[in-house]
């Protein structure tokens, strides 16, 4: 349930409509209930429309980028540790009520994920599209100016990006600048 909540918030961040995911229970004896769940869910997704196109004109590429970065972020140590710790605490408290879960995810897991996703996406943009201004990066990744600023700062401290005039360059990411 914690992962389902995390998934909803993460999908919102990468621009995918969270209604596309569902978490249901059907016991081995509840075949009629299962069939109803599947039929209702398929028609719901049908009304939402195909991935990308439904989320807005020519959004497919943008969402694709967000998702690629998101997948990497979901493997990042910081994000997974946050999720694991939250699961541990909730199990200890024994209180699995939705309020507690969503609050825990919003406070502890989502910020880590968002920062990691933006960091990954910045690196992808720089390596695939080449040097661009921090304003472009914030527009492409959907991250706020301040957020992108902070990320670029940490990346440059780690010697992974370099600022050249108003453009940022990725170091050792395939597109060697002059």
């Amino acid at each position, binding site marked *: 349930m914690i992962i389902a909540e995390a998934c909803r918030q993460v999908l919102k961040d990468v621009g995918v409509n969270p209604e596309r995911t569902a978490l249901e229970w059907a016991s081995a004896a509840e075949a009629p209930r299962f069939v109803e769940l599947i039929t209702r869910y398929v028609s719901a997704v049908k009304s939402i429309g195909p991935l990308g196109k439904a989320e807005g004109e020519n959004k497919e590429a943008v969402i694709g980028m967000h998702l*690629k970065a998101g997948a990497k972020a979901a493997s990042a140590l910081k994000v*997974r*540790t946050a999720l694991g710790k939250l699961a541990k605490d909730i199990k200890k408290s024994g209180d699995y009520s939705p309020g507690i879960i969503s609050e825990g995810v919003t406070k502890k897991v989502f910020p880590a994920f968002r920062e990691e996703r933006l960091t990954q996406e910045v690196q992808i943009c720089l390596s695939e599209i080449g040097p661009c201004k921090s304003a472009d990066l914030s527009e492409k990744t959907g991250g706020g100016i301040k957020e992108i600023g902070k990320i670029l700062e940490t990346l440059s401290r780690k010697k992974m990006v370099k600022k050249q005039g108003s453009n940022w360059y990725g170091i050792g990411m395939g597109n060697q600048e002059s």
Partner: protein
Amino acid sequence: MVEAGRSPNIEILTSARLENLDGKPGRFTAIVHQEPRFIDDDKCTACGTCTMYCPMPVVDLFNERLDITRAPHIDYAQAVPTSYYIDARACLRINYETCNLCAQTCTAQAIDFSQKPRKLNLDIGAVVLAPGFGRIDPSVLKKYGYGRFHNVVTSMEFERLTCASGPTEGHVVRLSDREPLKKIAFLQCVGSRDEICGNGYCSSVCCMYAIKEASVAKEHDPDLEVVLFFMDIRTQGKGFDAARERAEEKYGLRVIRARIPRVDQVDGRLALTWTTDDGKSCSELFDMVVLSEGLSAPKDAEAIAEIAGIELNHYGFCKTCVDSPLVASRKGVYVAGAFQGPKDIPESVTQASGVAAMVSELLSEARNTQTVTLSYPEEDKAIESEGPRIGVFVCHCGSNIAGVVDINAVRDYAGTLPDVVFCRDTLYSCSQDALKGIASKIKGNRLNRVVIAACSPRTHEPLFQETLKSIGLNPALIEMANIRDQCSWVHSQEPEAATEKAKEIVRMAVAKARLLEPLEQTTVDVSPTALVIGGGAAGMTAALCIADQGFECLLVERSDKLGGNLRRLVWTMDGGEASEVLDNLIKRVDGHPLVCVMLEAQVEDVSGYVGNFTSSIVKAGQPVVVDHGVIVIATGGREYSPTSYQYGVNKRVVTQLELEKSLASGKGILKNIKNVVMIQCVGSRGEDMRHCSRLCCTQAIKNALKLKGIKPDIRIYCLYRDMRTYGFSEDLFKEARKRGVIFIRYEPDRRPEVIERDGRIKVRVFDRLLKDEIDISACLVVLSVGITPGANDVLANVLKAPLTPEGFFLEAHVKLRPVELASEGIYVCGLAHGPKPLDESIAQAKAAAAKAAIPLAKGKAQVASIVSRVDKAACIGCGICESLCPFNAIRLFRVNKRRKAETITASCKGCGICASHCPTLAISMGGFTDEAIMAQIHAFAGERCV
């Protein structure tokens, strides 16, 4: 059921009955008469073609005559043995030598009319009678209009109506016009607690199943109105009261305390009339009336008793006694389940395991003499280490898949997938001959990964894994593509979409198969001793039973003497001397060579897993470390000490056990006692504890009869909420009423009070019939106090075993595994599991001994292969997995100064929660690795992968 069908040591003889039994315990010879099925079990693939073509309609007894089927049929799809049979009475071919249609249409050539009835001579060591119970005779139901009014149904018929595979696919409708229902009535005590039909006892189960059926009906149709008519609501099983309150409150079930005499039909609807407590008579109309029929003795009880040479009791059930409830009157013949007396499924299952223990005691030296263990060839490591060579077998399953999915297209498509070196379609891949064909193809083409595109792995994967094992291939190297149950069967109107889906399912299965790795089937040695914690009646019985089966047993008791609560009991339920039972148990325990007793000892720490536990037991301050294979918890319970009703303040207010002790000590104290008032449910059901303590009603009645026996003119009042004298103890309740005991019912919101004024005590209670408060002056007030859990939480922490909200140990499954805990190798019995009378505790102790003896008897514990494996290098020792694992199957160990996680393979159930939460992805699950699932996702996407 499926397990029973598959084990090589179980031979199921269907349509068979016992004809003769002679010999003595250990050496019986039985003659069994078996009617033919006219269909060969091995060949039949349960495809259903014969039922379609047979012209002869037959009433479907399995569906309680609510449906029609044909002469060749199967009771229900999941029946065991899963093969059809022909109802000889209806078949034209058998009776009139004509037709023979089914034999021609059967593609598997399984129908064989030459089969003859046969007689089998079996030489056996013991006989277990478990023929179950009989149904109430329809004549008894006549007065409720059953058989006259269409919409009066029995509870079993209602059960079939709500069942998804039943005649109406689970839609609860009026039988008269198939209209949906608006209002249902459940009548209780039909055919039980009923002198006229001779079933004076209470069937113990109808209250519970009525509430379940009512809840299921409400789930089907929330705005349905449900009314239940009870005399006493008897839901005394573990957790049943809580479930009943939840159901009543969640589904708004109306409960009326009245016994309906008859049912009339008024313009198509059913009219019930009854009188309420305050004398008002009411009547309402209903769409359907469900008769909660009781359990009577099996119809052929006399015949069985005569053949097996055992006695029946006056109700026609098998006669047994309180301290050995599982032994029939003839030595070597045992009884389990409803034939011993009406009971619920948990008690039947407990008795069944208990009987297994007693048989194992009787025949312990003949263990493993006639069982066969299959042997498998060496695993061919060479082939497995080669690159993936995948074989795909696409099954027709007769027409079940081929009728919708284009098998050839799927087969050819599979051939184009990478690493697939062989593909073929099979008519029935699960039939004996096809399995041989698949085995030879695997060897012939040196295949090391197999994909079977057919039905569900849940039902057939073990079958194919056996085939792989039989030719030296690791059973984990197979993946099933479910293109029947989840494809052709459910998309039969869209053949192209179904074929497309089948192709994609096969593509995903091949992607996963490519990454399958051999998983070794580890077995663990079991140290053949048992640890029993708690030396009460249950503990001693369990220890003796394990020892009699030939295994060493250590019995640990906290106090300085054995006996526990049994010491406080004077008489048993059937009037026998409790001290006799106690002395007998203690004498046998002290005398038994294989039982070692440790008094004044307490279990301080337990570690390890099934087969290899090590516990440290503190005795007189000194810890003693002991190795053992299994643990049986029998720590018992404690009598609830009341804090109200002036208990402890006035010495003339005593508990039932105290009364029993004083009655046994001498008649003297009864000299000046004329009035005795008993108060039921003191502490139980809502005061301090939510649960019903199950035995206080029967105990109160037992003491009341004892009092009446000593001083017939004594006046006894019994203030009760529900008299729960279930089963045969209903006779005692009737006897008490006959002897003049006055029973007054009180509601939980207006409990009786004990008032003391200048040395004399009075009990004030609100009498619902007189609608007024009455004061009964009492020379003695006896409180029927309930049973609270002992200090279970201390032991629970040591064993990491969960407790129920009420504080008793939580069993693995309340109905089907009542004496086992979720974690393997730990068993529970007696009052530690929940309040219960002596005979049920003894039966449970024997059941726990049976279950505990299984790993000891096997000597080896088989470990599932789907378990987690930790990559030590990647693990950073964060401990998240250890805290999340529901089965304590992954622990952190210190490996040269760093903490690393490690799996306890025996306890791991393969759920994978640790793997999905591991921050460094250090944990991989056997059979469901991250890479395999990722490969399936990419195969799912096919060309659209971004």
